[in-house]
Each structure stands twice: as structure tokens, then as C-alpha cells.
């Protein structure tokens, strides 16, 4: 095999069909993209945003670790998890745009919606390190809770009425199983490591604990679509209890964060961190209107 021509041959290839988003969107080949008659389209649109935003916003947070992880292996692992979630987000936002039928693609939805229109849970958006608001232990506490909850959610969505969401869930489950395993291993290592790591792990769990309740509070859209997130609780609790036991950590008492006039992330009411996250994420896209990327 010759590598000598790698640079020379650059302009001899015009094949742009090497990635999703470059003009071909067969990311889920063979999946029927008709909106099923049994599903209310506005509800399905809203639900795709909820699922897509959860994945997109946590991906954005995890990518902050890139070049800042405790070891190179972890730079690779966290980038991998962020990429998996970004991949899920792209499929879900693309689906949201299709169902809406107003010509919005994944980028219009990711970059041109304002904070109030984002539907992710608060757990995805809060700062858990490497920047202010946490550390590696907090990041792993969040990832354990998030991926355990997502697994409960996606495993039910495999039989969801919309075949695209069902296909994303089926594919995503395999990825999430790895994410949960990675997080659980770190929670155990840190919980049962040194006195310092134990204390940090304990603090990390406490940092994310107030955001648990929202995960199990079903939004009206979810209930109408037959997905009751309150039903995930026992399954998630079981996973967390097993991991905490191995990590020699105590399960904190429930301390649910109060909602704002009864509203939270699923209603578009976010934490103060969200505005900064979006400002950074959307800045370049919005600065160059009409640009193609």
C-alpha cells in the first residue's frame, strides 16, 4: 500500500458522500420515515426535541473534557461518549424537522432555537466539570444517572409507534450500555479508591441528586404518547443502588429541586447555565447567516 500520494491525491477526489449530512441521509437505512397515523405529529415533534436535546446538550457538556481529562484514555472515552450522544441527537433532531414539516433541518433546530424552545432535562445542562460546578467525579455521577435513565427510556421506545424513534432507541441502547458501564466503573473506583476520591464521589452524587426528580416527572406530551417516565424510577433506582453498594457510597435522601411555577426543562424553563451553553454553541452559526458548512 502506498501512502506517498495521500497529500498529492487530495484534489483528485470529489467524493463528498462519506458522512451523514453531506447530501445523503440514509443514516437509518430501511426505516420507514412516514409519520404513522396513530401518532399526533405536533406531539411527536415535541418529543423528538426532548430526546434530541437531552443528547445534544449532554454531548456538548462532555466534549468540554476533550484535552482536559485525567488521562489520555479518558480523553478518548469521553469524546467517544460525546460522539455517540451527538449521533443520537442528529438523528432525533432531523426526525423532529421532518415531522414538523416546516423545512427545518438538524442545524436549524440546534442553532436557531432560543433557550425557551429547548426541551432537555436540567441534568444534561448543569456544569459538572471540568469547568466550574464539578469535577471528574461529578461528571461520572451525572453520566451514571443519565445513562441509567436513558436506558430505561430507550428500552421502552424500541416498540414506540414512530419507527424512526424506535430505530434510534434500539441503536442508542447499545451505546448507552457502554456509557453506563464506563460511568459505573469510575463511580466504583472513585467511591472505593482513596479518602479524597471517596469524598469527591460523595459530593458528586450530591451535586446531581436534586436533578433526579425531573427525570421521572412525565410531561403531558410524553403521557399522551404513552411514555410515562415515572415508571422508569424503580429500574433506575435498582441500578444506582447496586453501583453505590459496590462503591461504598450511601444513597442520598431525595432532595428534588423545586420547579419554576411547576415548570422545568421539558417546558423550556432551564437553569442559568443553559444560556451560556447555547451562547457558545450557537455563536458562529448565527454570526454568519446564510453560510453553508
Amino acid at each position, binding site marked *: 500500500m502506498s501512502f506517498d500520494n495521500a497529500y498529492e491525491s487530495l484534489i483528485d477526489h470529489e467524493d463528498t458522500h462519506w458522512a451523514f449530512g453531506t447530501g445523503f441521509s440514509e443514516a437509518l437505512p430501511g426505516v420507514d420515515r412516514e409519520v404513522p397515523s396513530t401518532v399526533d405529529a405536533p406531539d411527536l415533534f415535541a418529543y423528538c426535541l426532548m430526546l434530541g436535546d437531552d443528547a445534544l446538550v449532554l454531548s456538548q457538556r462532555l466534549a468540554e473534557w476533550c484535552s482536559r481529562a485525567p488521562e489520555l484514555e479518558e480523553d478518548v472515552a469521553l469524546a467517544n461518549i460525546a*460522539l455517540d450522544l451527538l449521533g443520537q441527537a442528529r438523528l432525533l433532531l432531523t426526525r423532529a424537522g421532518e415531522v414538523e414539516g416546516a423545512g427545518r433541518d438538524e442545524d436549524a433546530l440546534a442553532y436557531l432555537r432560543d433557550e425557551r424552545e429547548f426541551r432537555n432535562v436540567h441534568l444534561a445542562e448543569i456544569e459538572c466539570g471540568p469547568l466550574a460546578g464539578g469535577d471528574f467525579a461529578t461528571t461520572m455521577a451525572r453520566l451514571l444517572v443519565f445513562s441509567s435513565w436513558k436506558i430505561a427510556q430507550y428500552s421502552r421506545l424500541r416498540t414506540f409507534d414512530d419507527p424512526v424513534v424506535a430505530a434510534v432507541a434500539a441503536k442508542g441502547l447499545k451505546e448507552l450500555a457502554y456509557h453506563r458501564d464506563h460511568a459505573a466503573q469510575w463511580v466504583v473506583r472513585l467511591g472505593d479508591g482513596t479518602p479524597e476520591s471517596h469524598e469527591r464521589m460523595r459530593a458528586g452524587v450530591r451535586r446531581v441528586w436534586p436533578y433526579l426528580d425531573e427525570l421521572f416527572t412525565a410531561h403531558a406530551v410524553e403521557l399522551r404518547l404513552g411514555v410515562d417516565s415515572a415508571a422508569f424510577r424503580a429500574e433506575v433506582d435498582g441500578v444506582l443502588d447496586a453501583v453505590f453498594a459496590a462503591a461504598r457510597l450511601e444513597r442520598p435522601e431525595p432532595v428534588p429541586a423545586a420547579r419554576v411555577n411547576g415548570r422545568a426543562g421539558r417546558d423550556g424553563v432551564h437553569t442559568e447555565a443553559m444560556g451560556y451553553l447555547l451562547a457558545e454553541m450557537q455563536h458562529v452559526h448565527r454570526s*454568519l447567516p446564510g*453560510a453553508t*458548512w
Partner: protein
Amino acid sequence: MDLEAEFERTVAAEHRVEPRDWMPDGYRKTLIRQIAQHAHSEIIGMQPEGNWISRAPSLRRKAILLAKVQDEAGHGLYLYAATETLGADRGDLTEYLISGRQKYSSIFNYPTLSYADVGTIGWLVDGAAICNQVPLCRTSYGPYARAMIRICKEESFHQRQGYELLMTMMRGTDAQRAMVQESVDRFWWPSLMMFGPPDSESANTEQSMAWRIKRNTNDELRQKFVDMTVPQAEKLGVTLPDPALKWNEERGHHDFGQPDWDEFWQVVKGNGPTNAQRVAHRRKAHEDGEWVRAAAAAHAAKRSADARAIGQSA
């Protein structure tokens, strides 16, 4: 003496030297220095591009960039692993990097100031790296040569992605085209510097060439890079910022101007635009992670003690 003669024969015959073979100390030291410097470059190189992950202007570009920076971490990992086959220790090498004792490619001491820089780094910087690295796929030390084969494949992919980004931007708005040109203006000369000082001033070239650690001189590779880049720039529709750049029919190569070598040495000596920032970033990540690594080690020790206890009670 026989060992040395055998080593010389192996190298001259273009055979590979493997970790358990005898090798001169100078060869070992030079290789460790060169591979470590390459590994450090991959790791420090994560920063200028990582700078744009959070702001990537489309989700596709975000995925491409994140995957690329992840690949760089992977390259760093297998290069550090290659140094370990020579008896070096990754922890020591990291210390040398964050204490400034060992260098990395100076190109990463230039800041990334627009999204076009992501494309320009892919096109020019990865392109220059490929020109430097392709010959190393045939370098005399086996583990290094094999690591380079894999790295070059991925670098070629990155380079194509970078060029494709620039091409897409050039087909976009006037603002995007201006952004690409401005980026190329900033990165052209530093890219030429990536091949190192002129041969007349390069201290290590001769011995490294004899040992087949290095296969071409700095000036040869620089010329090759310029010759390959000019048609690509034309196709892209950007102007390379060198008034002296023109085809020389007689030589069969492009003539081109010299980079500002004073600036080069200034950056190499640590006074580039971001040297202090890059090293401080790496040091902070390493130091902030110390408690995590200590915890992982403590946990592993407890588990192996548990395993021993189970073994004894059985």
C-alpha cells in the same frame, strides 16, 4: 563490536530494528526524543482544534472535529507506547512536556482564531505533517514505523476533511471566503516552518539520515510540500501569501520565499503566541487528574488484595 556491525547491517539493508535487538545508545536516545516529541505534538495539538469543538457551526462539523481531536489523543497514546518499547516511561515524558524540558511541534503555538482555522490546519498543517511522516512509515525502528502507518492513514483522512471544509466555505458566502483567505494567510508561513530550519542549520539531520530515522532533509520535504500545495490552493481559490512563489521550469519545482526564521526560533524557544498557554493547559489537566489516577491505582490495589485473600481462603 559485532553487535554494532549487525545493527549497521540491519539498518543499511532497510530491515527493521525491533525492541529486543541491540541498538546504540545514541540511536535509542534520538528515537525516544523524536517519538516523544511527536507524541507531545499530538497531545498539545488537541488544544488549538479542541478550541472550536463547542462552537462548531454545524452538528456534522462538530462530529468531525470531535472525532479528529479524539484521534489525536489516540495517536499520542500509541506513540507514547512506542517510546515505552525503548524503555521510556509515559509518566516521565509527560513530566518533561509540562516542565518544558521536551518540545512539541511549534505550529501548535499559533492560535486558532476562526472556524476556517480548523480547515486550514487539516489542509496545511496535517498536510505538512503527512509529508514529514509518510517517510517515517519506512523508518528503521519497527514499532515506530508501524505506528506511523496507522497514524498516516488517519492523518490523510483528517486532511481530506480539512480541505473539504475549506472547499465548502469557499462555495459559501463572501464572509466565509474572506475567513478562509485570512486563515491561510496566517498559517502558510508557520506551515512551511514545520519542516524545521534550513538544512544548513539543522543539527540532527545527518546522523538521523544515516540511521534511517529520518529519510529526507528538511528542505527536500519543504519543497515537496510547496509543489503539492500550489495546485490545491488554485483549485480552492485562495492565494498563498508569498510574492516570490512561482514555477521554475528549469528546476521543475516552485521557487518560494523563506519564512521568518527569527520568528521560528522565537517560538521554538518558548516565546510564541501561545506556548505558555498550551503547556499550562496540559499541566492543569495532568495535575487536576492526579487524584483520579491515584484513586484508580488504590482501587486496583484493593481489588488485587481481595483476589489474593480469596485465593488464600480457598
